[in-house]
């Protein structure tokens, strides 16, 4: 049966802006950036871990009608699409400081939990991102 998760997808409203954020600020690396004609296949991964990619997909035609794409965009900006990523880190507080210095908008400061120290942020579009330093 299955042996790995290789790709996950979230909706972003602008793929160039998404690259600035996910690569420029969060420090992920581009895995694939291919113009397929009908879409721009854009994936990123944690450096050194290309086995798991995140597809940064822009909602729009022909996959979605203009009207549906607009609804998706509105939900993303309300933080309601369910786009959600949880990363792990060796040092939550240090990563928080680094990202804060890069102007990242946080939703929660590093906090001790039974499962580790974690904190939360949003991407520029409204997707929910967290990272945890496991216990």
């Amino acid at each position, binding site marked *: 049966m299955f042996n790995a998760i290789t790709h996950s997808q979230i909706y972003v*409203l602008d793929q160039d802006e998404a690259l600035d954020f996910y690569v420029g600020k969060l420090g992920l690396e581009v895995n694939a950036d291919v113009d397929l004609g009908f879409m721009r296949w854009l994936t990123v991964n944690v450096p050194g871990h290309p086995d798991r990619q995140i597809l940064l997909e822009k909602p729009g035609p022909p996959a979605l009608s203009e009207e549906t794409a*607009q609804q998706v*965009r*509105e939900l993303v*900006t*309300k*933080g309601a699409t369910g786009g*959600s990523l*949880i990363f792990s880190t060796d040092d939550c507080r240090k990563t928080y400081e680094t990202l804060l210095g890069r102007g990242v*908008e*946080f*939703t*929660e*400061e590093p*906090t001790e*939990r*039974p*499962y580790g120290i*974690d904190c*939360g942020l*949003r991407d520029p*579009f*409204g997707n*929910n991102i*967290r990272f*945890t330093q496991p216990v």
Partner: protein
Amino acid sequence: MSRAAEDTNRRMLRARDAMDRAYAQPLDVPALARIAHVSQAHFTRTFRATFGETPHRYLQRRRVERAMFLLRETDRAVTDICFAVGFGSPGTFSRTFRDIVGRSPRTYRREATPANVPTCFTMAWMRPAG
């Protein structure tokens, strides 16, 4: 029109995030409207249109949810918890908690069981509805 709606949503989400983050601070409508970069007159109405409840109600439920979390996961005194989540007095805290949860903080503490899943999900899903 629609780009304007996206921009408005994002501003309202920013204000809602501020309540999730700084629920223990005194957050009033002028402060939240500044975070959202909109006028006070529009803020409450727009927030309600976006998320289905007023900012005041959202914040009250967030504070109660955080109190539920502390009652469940820590052994801090109820009065401590009241101030730690942003209520101004134990009387207001008990009354609001009971109105929303249907039980007193002490009864809730006795009956609750820890929920050991990532906080973002407990914050989103355990904020009392209705």
